[in-house]
């Protein structure tokens, strides 16, 4: 009798357990982890690195080469903008625009969206004073001046000959 009773109690317990089973065991739960926020910084080049405040931000999600407007917003006073990436999309094209000035950058989470020290140094160098650009520009100007001199001199010579 005692064993039968304990078997019944056990059986009841088992039924209770089955009835109270959390639904989790019936469905596979998938938890994905990903970086929750992408930080965008926009600033003007030319040495001072002035932040582009209150710029219009457009984020395009790129999936299979197709671009789709994901979200829009505005940069804060420090030229910063934050957005949460769409799950399953790792590539984004970011465009920031303020009073006719526009800059673009593609952020790819799959390739590691972080900015390495070397990349930052390069960006800072690009944003700095373009000394080589200035020298090149002066070179072009000297060349253009030479060409302009030749052309105008020829024109004047022709006019002189016609007289």
């Amino acid at each position: 009798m005692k064993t039968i009773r304990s078997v019944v109690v056990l059986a009841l317990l088992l039924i209770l357990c089955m009835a109270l089973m959390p639904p989790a065991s019936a469905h596979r739960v998938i938890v994905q982890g990903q970086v929750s926020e992408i930080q965008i910084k926009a600033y003007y080049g030319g040495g001072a690195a002035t932040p582009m405040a209150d710029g219009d931000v457009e984020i395009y999600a790129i999936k299979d080469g197709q671009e789709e407007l994901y979200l829009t917003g505005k940069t804060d006073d420090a030229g910063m903008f934050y957005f949460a990436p769409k799950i399953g999309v790792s590539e984004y094209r970011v465009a920031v625009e303020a009073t006719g000035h526009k800059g673009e950058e593609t952020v790819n989470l799959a390739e590691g969206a972080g900015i390495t020290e070397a990349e930052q140094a390069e960006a800072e160098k690009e944003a700095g004073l373009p000394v080589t650009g200035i020298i090149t520009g002066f070179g072009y100007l000297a060349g253009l001046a030479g060409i302009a001199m030749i052309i105008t001199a020829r024109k004047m010579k022709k006019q002189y000959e016609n007289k």
Partner: protein
Amino acid sequence: MVHISDGVLDPWLWESGWAITVVILAYTLSKMKTEDVPKLSVITAAVFVASLIHIQVGPTSVHFILNGFAGVMLGILAFPCIFVALVLQCFLFGHGGITTIGVNAVNMGVPALIAYLIFKTGTKLDIRPETKNKVSLFGAIAGGVGVVLALLLLAAELLTTGEEFYETTVLVVSTHIPIIVIEAIFTGVLAGFIATVKPEMFGKK
């Protein structure tokens, strides 16, 4: 601030910018004389580098334009000066965009021509050491007006992108006040100085 980048304006706008630029360029270059060339290239060099000098005003960064100055110094040749400076700025500094060189040249070059007109009407090109004060005054007015007109043109074009004209104008003009004042003083002082030491530099145009 005044260089419009690629992809901001509608195509018809920057296309017409190029059309206007090509017409004015062809006309002004046909009037160019050999003796103008050295002066033209020196002023172009100044305009080209001026846009690298930034001043931070409130939330934005502004730089020198020197279009009114170019107008006073070069007359109608200010237009090719601005155009060449813009092409070099675009390719070497990444200022503005390739498609918008035309519309940017109109934005800064046409005010430069108007600045020259103001200077010409005001001084009647009677430039001698004795008329120094008048030359300085109209040089300053032309230098300031050149910048203001460039900003108004910019605001008018941004209107097509859906920005509020009044709002944009107030924003760009207020942030450019230091630029307007400095360029006016710079142009006025330099015009007065040249009237004293080398009045023939303004030439007879």
